[in-house]
């Protein structure tokens, strides 16, 4: 599938794609942490199929909390829908195969003794037949350019390799949307470049939280800025990144 042309993708949001339902729909989402901290104060968001969206904001803005809602790992008040399906307990199995969530630290994401078992974990728990699991693992590892690493042990891999395999662990589930938490954090320039190329090649819808403004500029036509539990800006990356005053107000920098 080709990467959509930026002008097609830069549609101002909250209007779902003309055909069908938005891949991701969030309405008036609020979340209180058990200690009373109000992490999300009414978030509204809609992502159309094929869109590539960056989510930026200072630490503690609620980015990770928002992401954890997208497949029901935590549940707040409000509506969250994935491809028209509300994120509720009975839909968890389907939703979790549609939302490929990759956490920031690959040592948390990769918990199996071998790379193969980790990439196979999702398909296996989806109840797929064995030969299809093997097929999907091979394909997912090819997509992230790590073919042949099946029998390697995660603790012998570099951080860049682990991050790529962490992405493969959800690609093997054929997700409709990739949700990545700070994919480029801690990578050296070469590994970071390789990761950017990889993200550029992946065809699916993406929501990526990051502090890497260069990455945002290179890859994501649409930008959402969060601060203090709210979405404070949502629109074309090029336009938002020109608003220096607004960026500074939320502790961000122009790339």
């Amino acid at each position: 599938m080709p990467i959509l042309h930026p002008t097609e993708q830069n549609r101002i949001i909250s209007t779902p794609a003309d055909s069908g339902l938005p891949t991701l729909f969030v309405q008036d989402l609020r979340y209180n942490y058990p200690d009373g901290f109000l992490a999300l104060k009414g978030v509204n968001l809609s992502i159309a199929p094929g869109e590539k969206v960056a989510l930026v904001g200072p630490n503690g803005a609620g980015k990770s909390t928002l992401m954890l809602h997208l497949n029901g790992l935590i549940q707040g008040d409000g509506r969250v829908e994935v491809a028209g399906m509300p994120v509720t307990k009975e839909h968890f199995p389907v939703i979790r195969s549609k939302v490929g969530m990759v956490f920031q630290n690959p040592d948390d994401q990769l918990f199996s003794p071998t790379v193969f078992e980790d990439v196979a974990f999702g398909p296996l728990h989806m109840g797929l037949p064995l030969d299809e699991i093997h097929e999907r693992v091979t394909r997912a590892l090819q997509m992230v350019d790590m073919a042949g690493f099946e029998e390697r042990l995660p603790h012998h891999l570099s951080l860049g390799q682990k991050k790529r395999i962490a992405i493969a662990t959800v690609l093997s589930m054929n997700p409709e949307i990739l949700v990545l938490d700070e994919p480029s954090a801690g990578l050296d320039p070469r590994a970071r470049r390789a990761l950017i190329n990889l993200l550029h090649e992946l065809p699916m819808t993406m929501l990526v939280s990051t502090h890497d403004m260069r990455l945002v500029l290179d890859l994501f036509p649409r930008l959402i800025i969060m601060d203090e539990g709210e979405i404070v800006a949502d629109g074309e990356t090029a336009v938002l990144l020109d608003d220096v005053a607004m960026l500074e107000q939320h502790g961000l920098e122009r790339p």
Partner: protein
Amino acid sequence: MQTTAFDRYEQRHSPIHRLDPRVKTVVTGLFILGNILLPDGAWLAFAAAWGLVWISSRLARLPVSFILKRSFIVLPFTLAAITVLFSTQGTAVYTFPLFSHTIAITNEGIVRFTSIIIRSWLSVQGAILLTATTRFPDLMHALRHLRAPRLLVAIISFMYRYLFVLADEAARLLRAREARSAAAAANQGGGSILWRAKVAGGMVGQLFIRSFERSERVYNAMLARGYRGQLMTMNPHDLTRQDWAGLGAAIFLLALIQIIGHLIAIA
């Protein structure tokens, strides 16, 4: 930093490495069971059992010193059996007074004590051979297919996966302490033992909290990929003719060792 000392020899190629992990696990289990069943003082059988270890390590192209060196780790634990020296009935070879009693070391006691040491030492060598010639993930598969409790196998797998992460984390903590452990020129530095103990305790606590938080994140990562409280696994292995042959040969030799041990005890 990487901690690779644990799995240095697993990736080599040899007839032993190629054996199915289930066969190796079963044979190791039988080997240990056999050692336990051998009668006290069956020296020839003990020697034969060690011969089996030696041949296997040759076949696996492992330096015998590798296994020997690691096997000594068991010796301190065998000290727990030291009481059999005095508590076994028999001919006294040495007596000494303890408080108002006379303690006698008996001939039979020495034989039994030595046999216990040899048994545990042999068994540990068998286990070392198993872990040195089998990749850890394969060992876990073998345990699963041999019907070891799933939860137990899962716990061991996680332990193995995160041992390295934890070791790295501990090393980072130690380095951070090291980096700030300065001493003024005229001063010895380092603080009192109590203070040092407090620092060390704090570090252990840190490590625990970090592991605890990590376990939550790992659990989330599992849920995100469809985990619903039931760990599933695949069956990747089929027993080949060589595996059956290896299993047969091993069982034959182990039986032979038993026969030697028991016949000599009778004679």
